[in-house]
């Protein structure tokens, strides 16, 4: 089955101790591996000012995860755990695999177009990597 790729971001209360957030990440990782998924990347963005008040807080501790899975319901499980976790005040999952596919299609199409006509000094297409 095709593999799905997700961005998962959650925000903890600013006064959450480090071990708490680590524990949450570990729980998520465990749930993922139990269901044949994998956590590709974990990034702790740390404390950031929130654009608006969430649960009476003005700042939050951001954690960013990249999750891969072949099973769609993994996300439901992860979100359930986040919902239940006390320190977590907000979370959001974004499904990215379709997006990536579309991106690659555009890149391929662009490369094909460029290869078709001989261009002299074609500044290699500045990839989206710079801007994404």
């Amino acid at each position: 089955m095709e593999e799905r790729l997700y961005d998962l971001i959650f925000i903890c209360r600013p006064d959450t101790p480090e071990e708490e957030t680590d524990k949450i990440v570990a729980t998520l990782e465990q749930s993922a591996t139990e269901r044949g998924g994998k956590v590709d990347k974990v990034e702790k963005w740390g404390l950031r000012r929130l654009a608006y008040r969430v649960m009476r807080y003005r700042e939050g501790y951001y954690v960013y995860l990249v999750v891969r899975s072949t099973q769609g319901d993994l996300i439901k499980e992860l979100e359930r755990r986040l919902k239940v976790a006390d320190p977590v005040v907000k979370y959001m999952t974004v499904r990215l695999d379709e997006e990536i596919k579309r991106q690659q299609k555009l890149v391929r199409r662009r490369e094909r177009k460029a290869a078709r006509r001989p261009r002299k000094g074609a500044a290699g297409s500045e990839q989206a990597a710079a801007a994404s």
Partner: protein
Amino acid sequence: MADESPKPQSQGPPRREGGAPPRKGKRQYFRKRKVCRFCVERVDFIDYKRAEMLQPFVQDRGKILPRRLTGTCSRHQRWLTLAIKRARNIALLPFAAEL
């Protein structure tokens, strides 16, 4: 869309102001064909996680700026809107900010 090319026969008030309408109602009409920033850079993905990228396309009050002010093309404007709305959901951008 308004045609700005100067025509040999004059049609009323001369339209030399980059597409400003003859009447004085609206402030801006076209801004002399500003190009889409994203098209120039050929971006394929507008990342909702980078608020600093999105900031210039948002008003002080947090509202999304219309295409005609930013010069963005329709495709990128759609992606931009999606990214902004996602960023708002994750508190990276405000929904509404006090003026």
